[in-house]
């Protein structure tokens, strides 16, 4: 007997695939921002599904700060080769050579150079008119207000007070030359949905999401990994801590959470009972009030 029930995950999947296809059908030079994290993994799988049996018909773009974790680079190179995608990596060399780093500049300026400006440079260089991002509305309160098709002016800026109304599944894809659209196919997914989908679809993710004993330093109540050359402060001692990463970013600014969840089902169980949102481990979100909104206005995802 035929069954016409559709589960939440399959509904979200159908919506995301519709969005991915709409962009490819209406824009000339789309690109997918690939950040190596779990949301990117899910977004890439959705792109594989949307265009199967063809290949993903647009390049992936990694805006690399040069300060990601080793395990992220290893995973990226291996995974991209395995799925046969076209990956472009952009590093803002000029800024790095001028000494951009969070210790000297502070996190706000460091992000402004290595992430926001780097992203804008990369998009301009590639003359991309639409860029997919893996941001979800449940992550952060200004993202909750953003459209799935988010219009950006010629400088990549977001104007939250002047957004196009978005009705039904009818996306307004019209832009003038120089303007662009940021598209968020995972807008309606939650962190739990992402993990349930990873579980259901057996999607590979960076091993750092799974708990194991790692060399860490405890700083202002946060767990900072000693993955790169993190300068230790006085009285700070490295310790072995059983922990995992809920989100992945740059090693100086990404904290871990103590956890023993070493498999996807264990992570799912942990998230169902957890008390803090995932972005609490991202130092950069807490720099200043409305810091995400500010970054988005300036051109960040």
């Amino acid at each position, binding site marked *: 007997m035929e069954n016409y029930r559709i589960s939440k995950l399959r509904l979200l999947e159908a919506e995301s695939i519709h969005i991915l296809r709409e962009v490819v059908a209406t824009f000339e030079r789309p690109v997918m921002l690939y950040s190596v994290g779990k949301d990117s993994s899910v977004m890439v799988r959705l792109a594989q599904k*949307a265009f199967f049996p063809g290949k993903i018909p647009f390049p992936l773009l990694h805006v690399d700060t040069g300060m990601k974790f080793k395990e992220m680079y290893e995973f990226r190179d291996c995974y991209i080769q395995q799925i046969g995608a076209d990956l472009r990596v952009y590093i803002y060399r000029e800024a790095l050579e001028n000494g951009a780093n969070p210790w000297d500049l502070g996190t706000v300026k460091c992000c402004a150079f290595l992430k926001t400006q780097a992203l804008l440079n990369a998009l301009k260089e590639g003359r991309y008119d639409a860029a997919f991002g893996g941001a979800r509305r449940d992550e952060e309160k200004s993202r909750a207000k953003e459209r799935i098709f988010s219009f950006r002016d010629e400088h990549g800026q977001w104007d939250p007070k002047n957004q196009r109304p978005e009705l039904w599944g009818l996306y307004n894809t019209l832009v003038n030359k120089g303007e662009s659209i940021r598209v968020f196919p995972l807008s309606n997914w939650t962190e739990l949905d992402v993990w349930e989908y990873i579980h259901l679809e057996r999607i590979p993710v960076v091993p750092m999401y799974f708990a194991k004993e790692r060399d860490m330093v405890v700083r202002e109540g946060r767990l900072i990994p000693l993955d790169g050359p993190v300068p230790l402060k006085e009285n700070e001692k490295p310790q072995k801590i059983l922990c995992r990463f809920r989100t992945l970013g740059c090693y100086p600014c990404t904290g871990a959470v103590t956890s023993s969840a070493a498999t996807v089902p264990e992570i799912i169980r942990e998230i169902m009972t957890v008390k803090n949102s995932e972005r609490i481990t991202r130092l950069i979100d807490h720099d200043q009030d409305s810091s995400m909104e500010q970054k988005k206005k300036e051109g960040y995802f």
Partner: protein
Amino acid sequence: MGQKNDAEKLILTRSEDAELLRLATAGSVDDGKSTLIGRLLYEANGLYEDQLASVRQDSGRFKREELDLSLVMDGLKAEREQGITIDVAYRYFSTPKRNFIIADTPGHEQYTRNMATGASTADLAIILIDARHGLLPQSKRHAFIASLLGIRHMVVAVNKMDLVHYSEEIFRKIEKDFTNFSEKLRISDLLYIPISALKGDNVVRRSPNMPWYEGPALLSHLENVHVTSDRNLIDLRLPVQYVLRPNMDFRGYCGRLAGGVIRKGDEILILPSQQRSRVKSLVTYEKEVPYAFTPQSITVTLEDNVDITRGDMLVHPGNLPQIRREIEAILVWMDQKPLQAGRIYWIKHTSQLLKGSVTQLHFKINPEDLGRQKTKDFKLNEIGRVTIQLFRSIFCDEYTKNRETGSFIMIDPVTHATVAAGTLIERGRLPAATKEKKHKTISLHRQEGSIAPKDRERILKQKPATLWLTGLSGSGKSSIAFALEKRLMAEGHLCYVLDGDNVRHGLNKDLGFSPQDRSENIRRVAEVANLFNDAGILVMTAFISPYREDREQAKQIIGEDRFLEIFVDAPVEVCKKRDPKRLYEKAEAGLIPEFTGVNAPYEVPLTSAVHLKTDQEDLNACLQKILDLLRSRGFLKGKD
């Protein structure tokens, strides 16, 4: 190890089973909407500690007195500073039963467009009313927009009941006022709930402060409301979104099904070319599938090499949409610049982008009294009826039949702003604001005979009614119905039992047990009962009829004054023990999908005429209760 596998299985089942309900909330400036959503999220653990902490910080900064849950909702800096909501925000929470997406839409008049945006994808709308102020024009506006955008389920949440001493009188007054207004709208499922979002009354749990209220708490209603049958699974509509040609051997047509079911081997008609072909395969990443249904996104290959491009539509040859170059629509104007008749705009409809212009502005509608007014233009947030001339044909349905093929947006050709949302209506048909008789179509007229119901009543010495017995399988519906039939016949009353199993052997043998088929089953039974009643005969029906909405529909068909809902109630454990047809046994073994009480829900009646507890009362007691009801309401008249 075993435990671990169980946990994994549980999680997988949850991921595969959980359903999604989308809702929109609307209220006037201070109705406490953000507080309500904050409360729902807070109580359902949809809020995290760090988000709460930043609210505590903000509450302090903006000098508010107590922890203000509404600050969680207001995402933009300007909103938190001014204490108002500017834009639609989307929020997510889940309970073990369902996942929810809330579109929180601002209530100020100038942001009507946001209400329309939030409502366009919602299954259900919550309209908030401040108990202290009663029904204000704003709420009427919100209800009107919600119904205009095709939301079939509406909850009127009368908030701040704590500030009016939980007064039933005040609640009933608002209920009455709203009902008077909403009768002019097309809302099939309307529920009133008295709440206090601030104190939590009737939000997650039934409140002890309002014992006079007998309905469900808001959250349990949201968990149980039945929405699957809102989808159109009848009319196949596949707008081609993208043509996939990865190599010379493969040509696939991608799209999201806007309606109906497509099967391998189906004969297909392609619009606009009118070519025909057959479905060769339905391709997905995992495997080829035998069928696909709305709202899935799929890729179709066809037997023949035909010319198909984005914007075309695949349909079944016997079931065509309307093919139109001139459309009638209701527009919600969303731009600062007013609509100009004759100006050319972009129009996006399904996967088509084409040009068109408004040739006639018939009238604008005042959302507060639904009155019509002649007009020369539409300004921001105005709503009205237009005729649009298109530069190309579109393939469409009425919005009430299909939300996807019945909707469009208009885009300014210069600024590229989205300036209007439109819903299609039939030519010559009145807009949603005017209530219509469901059964009237142009070619069908009801024949009126010359015998009046009174004549039949006189001869039969009874007034016809339908006793609608609803309850779980094994609760005792059939036993009661047949015993009652015997008793009534013995007393000289003409009556008849429509029994679930018997009807499914004949009249409804083409139907299964999916929610859609269950609904259709109930609809047909209601139509038959209606005819029997017209003939003067008393009818007892014995159907599980688990969905409130279906019973409501039956009531509408049969007529409120002669429809008596009888709740045949027994705990599911008792029914399982009885299990006269060994159905529970089979269902629990996984042999019957969607069996009520095992793996499909039963929605308890809220307003039954009689409530029988068959685990506590014997058959005679049950019969007596029903006979008493029939006598007291004058359905059985004394014999000469």
